[in-house]
């Protein structure tokens, strides 16, 4: 079982399979894969959601995802591989928007690393979502204003 040659960090318009992303980090030395799946929910607070429209600055987003992977391997050297795949375009309730897979020989660090990956993704990766529901459209912004290490902006 060799790790596949597929890209580990990808923005795609295609549906995402959790098994397929897990396979990207699999290898003979791996004993634990922790994964996170983001799914489109039917409401935000009181607002009903019909679907979400995701948009990305794909080139930069893939570079930032790779940077998050590098940060993880620096913080948790036991982590052997990370893959993050995010979908763009129109997603209906129940569809998968993002899958993160974190692999290591042993499980302990994989949980923390997986959580770090999704938290960082929501903070720094140039992906946007517009929520479309019966009451109209709204951009959903989770980043609290560019609070990221060493690169504080403008």
């Amino acid at each position, binding site marked *: 079982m060799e790790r596949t040659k597929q890209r580990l960090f990808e923005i795609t318009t295609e549906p995402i399979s959790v098994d397929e992303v897990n396979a990207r980090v699999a290898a003979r030395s791996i004993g634990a894969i922790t994964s996170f799946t983001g799914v489109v929910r039917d409401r935000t607070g009181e607002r009903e959601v019909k679907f979400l429209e995701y*948009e990305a*600055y794909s080139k*930069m987003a893939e570079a930032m995802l790779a940077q998050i992977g590098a940060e993880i391997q620096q913080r948790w050297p036991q982590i052997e591989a990370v893959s993050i795949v995010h979908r763009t375009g129109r997603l209906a309730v129940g569809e998968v928007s993002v899958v993160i897979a974190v692999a290591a020989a042993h499980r302990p660090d994989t949980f923390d690393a997986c959580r770090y990956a*999704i938290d960082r993704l929501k903070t720094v990766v140039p992906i*946007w979502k517009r929520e479309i529901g019966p009451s109209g459209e709204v951009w959903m*912004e989770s*980043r609290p204003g560019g609070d990221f290490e060493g*690169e504080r*902006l*403008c």
Partner: protein
Amino acid sequence: MKIRVKLFASVRQALGRSLLELELPEGATVADLRAQLKSQFAQLHLENAGVLVAVNLRYAKPDQVLHDEDEVALIPPVGGG
């Protein structure tokens, strides 16, 4: 020099286009670019809206000097996941 600026999400919507071209003096910085955007497009509230600038696929600090082949983008608050 001419700087082409990619626009996304709420900023793209506010300006009704996904690309704009700015004329900036040689040696202009990211801060100069922001100042120019502010004077040229009153409807853009870059600071209030928390819009960041990316240069060559990385977030850029205000003092970064721009070059005419740079890939520049405005990054409104992100919301992936």
